[in-house]
């Protein structure tokens, strides 16, 4: 047995440690995932004006601040009792801001944080086994995806073309948010009752122009075909099978030409996603396309026991078809992406937030166990000697708590959302892998789902900008702080990384007496729960081979790509995950405990 520790896992947000036991076959036989920072965030909201929360909670995460602003604004709309009056155009503006941030975050994750892993030298060595085709492909991968300051064998590699262009597009998307929300990161616009800014006709024109720029990047880099063709044949396919058939036929055409010409360029028709789809999956690449080699991301990051995992989405985006207002308690019932709890065998169940509990048996907190987050009484370990990050099944080892839905660990994020909305391409891939006896949720489907979400959001964005947003509409309901007296609010939303909930309660002076956030990476990166069941990332890594392509070239513990791809495929945000802490205990009386609504 060998202990392989990745610390820090870079190219994510925050401080994340993965400690794996690797057996003689190069298979991960035990793993602990740990958040390495305690930040005490919710504490600072206590006794403050609740309206500050929409600004302060964004500082949890500079990559997805907008999601925190939205979840917070939702909780405040509810707290002030005006959710049913928030003007339709304010809801449209919030949808636009959120979808722009979702696309920017996904582009950043795919190109800047995740794809650099496929220019790991292990793949150079793997591709070297298939001659000229491999050499040509390796050259193309470096040309597109090499990160900044990259060196191989002492030679500097210039940053990849797609990598650099993605940074430009991410910047453009953030600029579009700033246009109607002041600045990014940490936008200023989402407030209780609506938004602060009334977009002008000129702004709508500019937003449309940003959209076209971004679609030029998507058509010219991400995809090998026009995005309308792609979406018509996948997202709008008549069945999941047809969506997958389109993908495979499209890839077959590319492969037939390129295996002869050894040309994997954009000119030859290869979009970035095509390269991932063809060479990332053993089933698609080797079985269906007949490629001589694949990177086998579909063989890693899966779940071995469907009874111990679920998928969770709170739903996101307001339903703006029916005029002003929304129901914060029924959020996710309508709107573009729906709320759902899906079991490990892909059965859909109705989501009920009362089924959420958080456990702290393996987290550096003391207090009661297995409580709804809003009843949580949590206190950090204060003695430095008791903070031992080398903990294991028997002890505490992470600052991340273990949230469970009905007792089950849940994966949240694009894959969960795509399953919740039964997106055809994602469901087609899931069916295909299930039939093949593989875990349908795996590192490959997780990445494909994120890319697909980025693409399909573009259509909704355009609709909100060009059809729904009325610059002559109303954008904010007037409020007064006294409206928040002795009140409570719930704000459910989705961050790029998954389900995000904010809960707030105020006292007689309208000041915050409890503020709680339950955040996506807390779900994904959770440690073991009180029953010893590992969190989703831990489960996904158990049984994964440590080295590239299922240890094809042998076991290399010093280059544990199996750990890196899979952990990064969840797009972890540790600053979010370790946000926690409510010292309700310190505040004293029971009346200050949140009552579940």
């Amino acid at each position: 047995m060998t202990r392989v520790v990745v610390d820090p896992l870079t190219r994510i947000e925050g401080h994340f440690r993965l400690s794996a036991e690797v057996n003689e076959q190069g298979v991960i036989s035990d793993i602990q995932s740990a958040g390495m920072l305690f930040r005490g965030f919710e504490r600072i909201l206590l006794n403050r004006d609740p309206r500050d929360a929409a600004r302060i909670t964004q500082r949890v995460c500079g990559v997805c601040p907008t999601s925190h602003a939205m979840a917070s604004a939702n909780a405040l709309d509810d707290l002030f009792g005006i959710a049913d009056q928030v003007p339709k155009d304010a809801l449209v503006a919030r949808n636009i801001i959120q979808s722009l941030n979702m696309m920017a975050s996904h582009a950043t994750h795919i190109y800047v944080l995740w794809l650099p892993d496929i220019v790991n030298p292990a793949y150079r060595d793997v591709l070297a086994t298939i001659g000229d085709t491999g050499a040509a492909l390796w050259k193309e991968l470096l040309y597109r995806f090499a990160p900044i300051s990259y060196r191989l064998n002492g030679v500097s590699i210039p940053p990849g073309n797609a990598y650099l262009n993605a940074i430009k597009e991410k910047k453009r998307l953030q600029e579009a948010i700033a246009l109607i929300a002041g600045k990014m990161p940490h936008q200023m616009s989402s407030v209780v009752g609506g938004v602060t800014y009334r977009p002008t006709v000129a702004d709508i024109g500019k937003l449309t122009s940003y959209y076209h720029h971004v679609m030029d990047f998507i058509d010219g880099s991400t995809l090998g075909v026009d995005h309308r063709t792609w979406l018509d044949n996948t997202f709008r396919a008549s069945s999941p099978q047809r969506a997958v058939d389109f993908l495979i036929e499209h890839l077959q055409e590319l492969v037939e030409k390129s295996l002869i010409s050894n040309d994997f360029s954009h000119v030859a028709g290869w979009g970035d996603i095509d390269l991932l789809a063809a060479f990332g999956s053993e089933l698609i690449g080797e079985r269906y396309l007949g490629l001589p080699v694949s990177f086998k991301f579909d063989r890693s990051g899966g779940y071995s026991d469907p009874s111990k995992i679920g998928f969770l989405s709170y739903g996101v985006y307001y339903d703006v078809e029916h005029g002003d207002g929304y129901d914060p308690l029924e959020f996710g019932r309508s709107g573009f992406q729906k709320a759902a709890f899906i079991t490990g065998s892909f059965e859909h169940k109705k989501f009920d937030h009362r089924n959420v509990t958080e456990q702290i048996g393996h987290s550096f907190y003391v207090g009661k166990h297995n409580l709804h987050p809003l009843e949580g009484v949590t206190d950090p370990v204060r003695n430095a000697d008791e903070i031992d990050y080398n903990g294991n099944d028997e002890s505490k080892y992470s600052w991340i708590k273990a949230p469970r839905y009905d007792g089950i660990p849940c994966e949240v994020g694009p894959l969960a959302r795509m399953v919740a909305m039964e997106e055809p391409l994602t469901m087609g891939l899931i069916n295909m892998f299930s039939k093949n006896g593989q875990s349908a949720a795996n590192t490959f489907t997780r990445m494909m789902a994120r890319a697909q979400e980025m693409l399909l959001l573009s259509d909704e964005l355009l609709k909100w900008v060009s059809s729904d947003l009325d610059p002559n509409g109303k954008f904010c309901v007037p409020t007064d702080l006294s409206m928040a007296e002795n009140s409570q609010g719930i704000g459910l939303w989705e961050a790029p990384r998954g389900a995000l909930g904010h809960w707030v309660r105020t006292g007689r002076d309208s000041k915050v007496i409890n503020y709680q956030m339950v955040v996506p990476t807390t779900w994904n990166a959770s440690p073991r729960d009180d029953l010893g069941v590992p969190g989703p990332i831990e489960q996904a890594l158990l049984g994964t081979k440590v080295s590239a392509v299922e240890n094809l070239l042998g076991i290399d513990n010093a280059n544990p790509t199996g750990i890196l791809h899979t952990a990064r495929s969840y797009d972890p945000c540790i600053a979010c995950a370790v946000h926690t802490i409510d010292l309700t205990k310190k505040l004293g009386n029971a009346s200050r405990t949140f009552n579940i609504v």
Partner: protein
Amino acid sequence: MDRRTFLKVAGAIGASAFLGIYHSDISNAIEISKTKIVWIHGAECTGCSESLLNAENPDIVQAIQKLNVDLVYHETLLAQQGIFVDGRLAGTSELNSEILLNDAIEEGGYILVVEGSIANGPNGSGKYCMYGERPFKDIFKKAAENADMILAVGMCATYGGVNAADSAITDLMDFRGVSFLKEDPSKGMLTELGISKPVINVPGCPAHPDWMLLTLAAVILGKIRVPDDLDAVLDKYDRPLVFFPADHTLHDNCPRRGFYDVGKLDTDLSGDGCLWKLGCKGPYTHSDCALRKWNGSVNMCTQAGSPCISCCEPGFPDSSSPFYEEAEDKPVLFGMNADSLAKVGVGTAILAGAAHAVRRIVVDKDDEKEGEV
């Protein structure tokens, strides 16, 4: 171009034009010796790195090339990660970020950029923030000792930011800025560790990409000599005066300033008037946001109808919270506060003087240093 000219130029323009002016310097970039940058992350949200990626004309990659920068270490961007096999660092610096970082620190001669606060808790152990199997505090100590100078970016690294905001466990967590904790330099982590290094603070939540890149450019091109020029170009919180002028506030150039002058003070959000009564802290905020604007200069907070929350002042967020309540007035001139001055300004002869008068009111005279702009 001397320092004085630099201040004028950098204050007036964006990074692109600045680098353009230095065309001759830049075309000789090959002669500018390589500048190594080590960028480390403590307790933070990565918003400042995100902001850096938003840099415009030049973008971050162009700036690196033009200034001949070697971005040696930046954990959000680089390919490497920390890898330990049976407790030992494994592989080489091309795959292992911990070897890369250790080597860089060992070699010295770099600018250290710090993003995020440094955890001192609990009880001075620093164990509330770890990476690479050690407290971040230990990494910071080694990296600071061997650095030529330190650039602290964002509120967390400069003054503690949200990490140090008031709460019942602030003292337990004990987060520190590099050389300050809020307004207090005696509680900076460098003082705690007994290290003396030149520091430039570039606050903001996040820091504006121009503030970061222009400051780096000025240091790299020798337009600000470290440490000789620092006293002259920094304010008492070690912020570059050129971006955070002591005698100038955001209010002076606010796009909504005209509404203030004519007394159109909005009381509900999503209007187009002055935001003073809605809690705007622009008159207390020493930043050039209103001139420079954000994200390709398309907008800024007050222009977008949001009260300024003063996110570059050392006391943020406590000093500007509650964000949506009218600020208590500072000293009053002629018996008037900022509120009444605006009303008096309507159609009267004082109108022209109002801008100046209010600035005088709200700028704490003690804060003022001789402005260089």
